[in-house]
């Protein structure tokens, strides 16, 4: 009988970790659903099914045990992050394509669970926004009230994608207005438009961001993530946006606007904290989080994409191995020498 010590093991498993991440997403999802309607729930289901199917195919091709890996929950987390970052009324095939690409290419072609150098959900987002820029920028106009049936019809392509759908995210709207207006608009006048904006950022989107924050804090409380990445992410995003906002409040939105817009909260707590593709040392996590926040700001404010979180995370994924290598903490008893 081969049974090495320790004989006692903590009750923990990969699926428990993944399930808790999904649970932590629920407050944000609830706020999201109340904002845009049941479409997001439909997208979550589509993405989940697509992820599981892709996972099953890849596991079979790679000769891995199906039951063990299909139940680990990692594909579901990827699927949910994709559904939550894609436009809620995106056609079903876009979500399926993104999810399949994430699972097949970004995950399994690199070796499957635990081996992917890039966050699969962010790879999906980047690939789709490059390949299908128009579809990836069509967000439902605020105040557009469609029932489940109408939304299903749009997602499944049975109804025409009417122009009313092709709104922009509040973040994108702000950027476009500031850029095109060439100084004729300033941030405060834009924010005063209560059709699009709420108290701090996009109307209703503030609550979604708040939901993610709540779920993220719960993950931290459960010790599934440490404080380093979210704090550094939020900190660097606040610092850079705060500095530019102080420099010119008419042209640059406040830190609160940036924190509560786009993928900032989701990125800080759920995406940049992905342990597989992120940094692992405490100092490395701080650098990683700060880099994500900084790059996200630069891309979303000065770049060509509506939001910068996905590219920021991917760029930092690229640097994570080197950061880890350079930030190895000193071991017990060697702190003076380090």
């Amino acid at each position: 009988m081969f049974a090495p010590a320790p004989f006692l093991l903590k009750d923990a498993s990969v699926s428990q970790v993944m399930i808790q991440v999904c649970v932590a997403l629920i407050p944000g999802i609830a706020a999201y659903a109340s904002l845009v309607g049941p479409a997001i729930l439909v997208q979550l289901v589509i993405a989940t099914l697509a992820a599981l199917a892709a996972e099953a195919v890849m596991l079979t091709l790679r000769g891995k045990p199906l039951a063990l890996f299909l139940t680990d929950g990692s594909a579901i987390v990827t699927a949910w992050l994709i559904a939550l970052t894609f436009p809620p009324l995106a056609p079903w095939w876009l979500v399926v394509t993104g999810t399949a690409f994430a699972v097949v290419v970004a995950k399994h072609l690199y070796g499957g669970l635990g081996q992917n150098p890039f966050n699969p959900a962010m790879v999906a987002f980047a690939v789709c926004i490059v390949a299908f820029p128009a579809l990836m920028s069509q967000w439902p106009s605020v105040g557009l009230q469609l029932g489940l049936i109408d939304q299903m019809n749009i997602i499944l392509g049975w109804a025409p994608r009417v122009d009313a759908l092709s709104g922009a995210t509040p973040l994108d709207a702000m950027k476009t207005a500031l850029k095109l207006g060439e100084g004729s608009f300033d941030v405060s006048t834009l924010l005063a438009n209560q059709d699009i904006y709420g108290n701090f950022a996009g109307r209703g989107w503030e609550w979604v961001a708040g939901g993610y924050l709540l779920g993220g804090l719960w993950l931290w409380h459960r010790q599934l993530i440490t404080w380093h990445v979210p704090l550094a992410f939020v900190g660097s995003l606040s610092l850079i946006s705060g500095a530019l906002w102080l420099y010119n409040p008419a042209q640059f939105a406040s830190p609160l606007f940036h924190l509560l817009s786009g993928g900032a909260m989701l990125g800080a707590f759920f995406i940049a904290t992905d342990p597989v593709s992120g940094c692992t040392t405490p100092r490395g996590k701080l650098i990683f989080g700060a880099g994500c926040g900084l790059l996200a700001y630069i891309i979303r404010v000065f770049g060509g994409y509506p939001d910068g979180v996905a590219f920021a995370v991917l760029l930092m994924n690229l640097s994570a191995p080197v950061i880890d290598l350079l930030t190895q903490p000193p071991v017990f008893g060697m702190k003076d020498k380090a």
Partner: protein
Amino acid sequence: MLMNLFKFKGGVKPPSNKLQSNHLPIAQAPMPSRLIVPLHQSIGGTPRPIIQAGDHVLKGQMIGQADGWISAAVHAPTSGTVLEVAMHVRPHPSGLDSLCVVIEPDGKDEWITRTPIDHRAVPPADVFHHLQQCGIVGLGGAGFPAHGKLTPSKGVAMDELIINGAECEPFITCDDLLMRERADEVVRGIAVFRDLLQPKKVLIGIEDNKPEAIAAMRAAVDAQNEPFSVVAVPTLYPAGGAKQLIRVLTGKEVPGSMRSTADMGVQVFNVGTAYSAWRAVAHGEPLVSRILTITGNVHAPRNYEVLIGTPMDELLALAQPHPDTDGILMGGPMMGFLVPNPQVPVVKTTNCLIAHADRLFPPKAPEMPCIRCGACARACPHELQPFEMYWFARAKNFGKTQEYNIFDCIECGCCSYVCPSRIPLVQYFRFAKSEIWAREREKNAADQAKTRFEFKQYREEREKADKAEKLAKAAAAQAAKKAAEAAAAAAAEGDATPSAGAAPDAAIATVNPEKEAKRATIEAAMARAKAQREAVQPKNVDNLTPDQQKVADDIEARRVAAHLIAPEPVAPDNEKSE
């Protein structure tokens, strides 16, 4: 007394499972049918057997003599007859055999004459010798001979003597019960260590889940009016690891590379070691029994005082194991191991026997890939990065595992305990360590072979050179002889025709000027070589006694007689350094 405690990073809190076995007093285990006493029971040299099959031995009679300084004697645990001195499986994960003395008890349990010593009246060296002869070794787990740890490190003042009563492993309660019931003798033993080491402070660390033991130890310290501090340390596995306890009590971090904690001015002993040291000093009793916990999948868990060498299955029967018991775990569930078979004997370092059953220790779920969650790194008390070491150990990139300080790993099992992917991390680290050790041995062997080969090459070349020189010499001698003969012949001719006296010489010179020049060169070279050889004499011929000189001269004479040339100097460098 309040004192400032320190924290070590990491650690885990597994369910303690101590309540099952700590509510009953220590019981005396009955005499077993036979005793199997392994000779190798401590770190260091294997004691040599000094008895034979058929000998009658008394309780406490030495049966294995310490081999070297880091080694401790082994004794007969009871009186009886030696059945055999033979190889038996010892309680070790390897399942390998080792030399054991098998004794059939005669039931009289008759002691040898015990000779206590007054440790204050005799020099420390005598106390060390006494402890070594009584077989006192660390009972906390490693089994390091106690006397080896009682000499202060040179040049480092002994600041703290730490007594380890933490007992952080789940299930084990033998130190708890020892402190509750025999605190007085434990404290006296600590005083012996104190007298030998002369530390500035004595700290007794006990995890705060043992309030009775803490109270008993405090009472004993007060009763003996000793200035020892009994400190309740937070319950957190592995607080009982020597380096963790040092950290908690003193704030010092002993690096993994440091062999002895004495180099940091601190020394740690287990409470059980202090107790047996006192029995040895005050009563002259060698270490023939110890207290151990029998628990796990049994009806009646309890602590027993057990003779060393008692087969484990006989002990487990005392606690009435449940029918689904499928193995015996020696030590705690975090660092212990399943013994190779149930008949293996209890040794000095056996602190606990746990009846194993799947009900208690469920079979592990299948191993999943590492998701780099870092739970292991947060749990590691030595602040290592287990997932990185795992990655490299799995890839057999052992150099990298060493860069990540794999030898600082104390194999406490915290990383495996928390891993959500169920990776047996400690196993990977043991594998990597043993591979590195094996490679080190191979490398040493290869280096030695290389040195041998190089020396052989050098020797062969030297012999070849010697031979060539010898041939050259012989040829030169031949040429000289011929020249002499030719000269003699010429002289004879000259006698006949004196008028032409100078002509033949001139003729020879003109006939062979090149040969002459060559001969001169060879002779000059030989003279230089000879001068060099004489200048470089082997060192061992200096300062010889007349007798040795005579012997050497005789040999030299025989060599010359046998036409052997004078020996070359051994090292080639000597000639170069001329």
